[in-house]
């Protein structure tokens, strides 16, 4: 991508639009910027103070863009007193459109009611714009704080000039600067003078101490809430353009099959149909798979025509996956170690020989679909060699590259607008639907919206990989966990391990134990897999934390005490790396969750409490589930107590919402959601046979935060993984039944 992309986009704040175009030229002329620097954007008379900020090494792109500074924050203080803050990252429901501007507003001492949050366009100048890995907050925390502090410093400097007093004698609050006499000037009144002040050096700024926070840590409601509750057009699917036509795209039910021919003439004669054609595709399921496009004058006409479409598929290279066969193969393989040794440390064999107790167990879990409620869709218009796209994508910058590849257009001919996203969960990290509409738009003389049916969405997903773990654990004479081995059976797509399918060498409890062995077998898979909320962790947590409980039980120990002992001394395995387990933080959340849940209290028969801890996506989370199970294996999850340490909480309302949602999503997925495939085709198609939880099954969720001194990290993912093991450990406590297969419906449970 180059800066020309930005020049073609329209900004929601027209003044920033003009200023940024000047800024491009300004940067191009100088090209030399400090690693931490501000750009006080060239003012437009009457526009107030506008700042762009480029911060840290991540603010610089590699390769051809190395000279192009990337700003990760924009702030404009208008003379009318409005404070415009750009939200740069895609909003998928994780709340960044609210939480990221809150960080700027805090350091700026802006009154939140003066803040107007605008969704920024897509372009390399806006830093790395994506929604994934719970990374939006940790990657932008420093930049956003500095941006707010810089704007504040310039407003203070302007006031100091006006009053002719030293800047350090002034204080700020609620979008105003106060002097020691108690006089105040509003930010709006100061904006024009502030714009004429020199931009401060980043290193000269003093950031607030946490005790000074007025906004961060409070419950702030989402900036789009009013638009959402009144049904305003926000989402990708809501895009409407003059003269727009509607498309469906039909792909082979067995992944990788190619369209050879179709009853196109018949389809073209159907009511409302304007055109129908085959796209050869580029053979890459994440970009453009072969298929048949139907263009119609309404979504319904396109859907109806799709039902009449008959395609002859060449399945010579298509998937032939069979879940039944996979299950059988894995059970055979599980009887021995895997060929690939991922880790083998200490003396595992010795630990088993000297063990007081050993436990062997085989755990398996299912493929799962993302099933976001907004089915995949995208709108594009190809005109005069330019392609404009309206995309609900978690990786909009990546989408531009993929679209360039499939259309043959250079990136500067592609303008991409981001929309609000009706659920991501990792599905929209891939841009297949964006590529499809781009290729279709090149053949259509009008704006075109591609709309997938729910069935398409469920049967052409990139699934959470299933997995099989053959585990053996040892407990020594003193009742301590002394040895652990695991053979993981997972998958490859096109020869490469699937995303979220492999255990790393340092996956818990590898680092906590002296004697640890992990081997792996990869089965080739035609069904495509990809990141699903808390990739890897979403399933591994269930296996590891269930097995730890099995071992604690075998040793006759209290689960909590056993788990705390496994954590050992408080230590940070890779000091300074937020993605490395810190056992001190783990211990703290385990203690807090169990204390708040009343761990150890007497419960009636059929009722039990289960504990689990998992560290993922930089979040330390412990959960206690309280469940009851009746004689017919009907499960009720009464309450889940969550204790989490993600550092200081940015938006308490958003963080609590993510915790509640993570619990419901975790329970929904473990309960009955399962994707199976036979003859390469996914057998589930819609919410009648892939049935997510309803309101009556949602447990009470009580969330506690340990707001430690570490830098804040994301809340979108880490609460989900511990839920399944906490519930299964509670089922064991209630019934003595150890769940070893997910979803629970496989073992006869209902909810």
């Amino acid at each position, binding site marked *: 991508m180059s800066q020309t992309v930005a020049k073609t986009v329209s900004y929601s704040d027209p003044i920033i639009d003009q200023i940024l175009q000047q800024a491009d030229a300004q940067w191009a002329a100088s090209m030399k910027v400090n690693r931490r620097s501000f750009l006080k954007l060239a003012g437009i008379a009457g526009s107030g103070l506008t700042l762009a900020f480029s911060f840290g090494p991540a603010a610089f792109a590699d390769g051809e863009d190395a000279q192009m500074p990337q700003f990760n924050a924009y702030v404009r203080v208008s003379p009318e007193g409005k404070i415009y803050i750009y939200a740069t990252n895609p909003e*998928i*429901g994780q*709340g960044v459109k609210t939480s990221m501007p809150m960080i700027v507003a805090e350091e700026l001492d802006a009154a939140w009611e003066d803040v107007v949050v605008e969704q920024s366009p897509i372009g390399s100048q806006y830093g790395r714009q994506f929604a994934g890995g719970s990374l939006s907050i940790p990657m932008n925390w420093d930049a956003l704080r500095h941006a707010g502090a810089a704007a504040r410093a310039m407003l203070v400097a302007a006031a100091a000039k006006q009053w002719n007093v030293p800047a350090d004698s002034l204080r700020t609050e609620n979008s105003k600067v106060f002097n020691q006499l108690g006089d105040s000037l509003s930010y709006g009144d100061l904006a024009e003078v502030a714009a004429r002040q020199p931009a401060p050096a980043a290193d000269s700024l003093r950031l607030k101490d946490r005790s000074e926070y007025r906004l961060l840590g409070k*419950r702030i*409601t*989402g900036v*789009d*809430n*009013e638009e*959402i*509750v*009144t*049904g*305003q*057009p926000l*989402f990708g*699917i*809501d895009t*409407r353009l003059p003269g727009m036509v*509607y498309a469906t795209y039909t792909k082979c039910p067995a992944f990788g099959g190619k369209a050879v021919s179709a009853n196109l003439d018949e389809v073209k004669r159907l*009511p409302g149909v304007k055109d129908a054609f085959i796209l050869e595709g580029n053979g890459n399921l994440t970009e453009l798979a072969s298929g048949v496009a139907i263009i119609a004058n*309404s*979504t*319904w006409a396109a*859907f109806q025509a799709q039902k009449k479409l008959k395609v002859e598929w060449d399945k010579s290279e298509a998937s032939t996956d069979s879940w039944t066969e996979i299950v059988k193969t894995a059970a055979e393989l599980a009887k021995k170690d895997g060929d690939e040794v991922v880790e083998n440390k200490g003396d595992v064999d010795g630990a088993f020989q000297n063990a007081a107790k050993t436990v062997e167990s085989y755990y398996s879990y299912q493929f799962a679909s993302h*099933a*976001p*409620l*907004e*089915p995949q869709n995208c709108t594009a218009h190809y005109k005069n060699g330019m392609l404009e796209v309206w995309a609900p994508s978690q990786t909009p910058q990546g989408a531009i590259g993929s679209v360039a590849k499939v259309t043959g257009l250079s990136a500067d001919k592609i303008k991409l607008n981001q929309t*609000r*996203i*009706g*659920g991501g*969960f990792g599905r929209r990290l891939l841009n297949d639907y964006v590529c499809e509409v781009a290729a279709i738009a090149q053949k259509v003389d009008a704006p075109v919206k591609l*709309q997938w*049916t*729910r069935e398409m969405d469920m049967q052409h997903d990139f699934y959470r990989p299933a997995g099989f773990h053959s585990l053996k654990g040892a407990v020594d004479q003193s009742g301590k966990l002394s040895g652990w081995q695991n053979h993981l059976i997972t998958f490859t797509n096109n020869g490469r391990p699937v995303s979220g399918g492999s255990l790393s060498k340092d996956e818990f409890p590898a680092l906590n134990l002296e004697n640890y062995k992990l081997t792996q077998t990869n089965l080739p898979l035609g069904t495509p897999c990809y990141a699903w909320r808390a990739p890897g962790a979403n399933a591994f947590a269930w296996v590891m934390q269930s097995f730890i409980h099995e071992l604690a039980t075998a040793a006759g120990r209290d689960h909590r005490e056993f788990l705390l002992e496994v954590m050992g001394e408080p230590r940070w395995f890779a000091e300074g790396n937020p993605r490395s387990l810190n056992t001190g933080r783990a211990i703290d959340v385990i203690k807090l969750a169990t204390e708040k849940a009343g761990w150890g209290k007497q419960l009636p028969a059929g009722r039990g409490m289960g504990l689990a801890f998992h560290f993922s996506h930089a979040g330390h989370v412990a959960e206690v589930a309280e469940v009851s199970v009746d004689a017919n294996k009907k499960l009720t999850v009464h309450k889940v107590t969550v204790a989490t340490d993600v550092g200081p909480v940015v938006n308490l*309302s*958003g963080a609590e*919402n*993510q915790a*509640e*949602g*993570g*619990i*419901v*999503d975790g329970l*929904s997925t473990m309960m009955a959601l399962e994707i199976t495939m036979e003859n390469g085709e996914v057998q589930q198609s*819609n*919410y*009648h046979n892939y049935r*997510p*939880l*309803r*309101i*009556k099954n*949602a447990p*009470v*969720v009580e969330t506690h935060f340990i707001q430690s001194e570490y830098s804040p990290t994301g809340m979108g993912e880490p609460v989900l993984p511990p839920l399944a093991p906490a519930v299964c450990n509670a089922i064991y406590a209630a019934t003595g039944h150890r769940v070893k297969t997910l979803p629970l419906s496989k073992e006869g449970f209902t909810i």
Partner: protein
Amino acid sequence: MSTINTTINGKSEAIQDVDPSTPLLWVLRDHLGLVGTKYGCGIAQCGACTVHIDGSPVRSCSTPVSAAQGKSVTTIEGLAVNVGALTAVQQAWVEHDVPQCGYCQAGQIMSATALLKANPNPSDADIDAAMSGNFCRCGTYPRIRAAIHSAAKAQRGEKA
């Protein structure tokens, strides 16, 4: 292709050039531009498409537009009588910060509004029954429940 005469959000509409079997959802979204009503499943499983016909909640993805003949349809856009105002239910949704992605919430609000009209003081079990047709992929159920209780109080004139 007959004409369907209906009232949508208080405004008379003569819908032409549409097959009467077309789901109301797609007439609202594609023909009338009322995109607040959402497509989620097309088989009346998720409730994202919920609208009111003569005050009763229906799944517009599985209701032919012909069913609106001579009737009054209310969508999320027409829920508040005055433009720019919010109903008690919408207000509660904002205050409880219910939405995550927000995609299902129009349907949730339409179902909740119908519930409170029929039952101004619903129990948790009443809420479970009335809201069971609305799926939230983000799992905002605890907040939906709290918002309904709070809207019910507000509508009864009690302090929320």
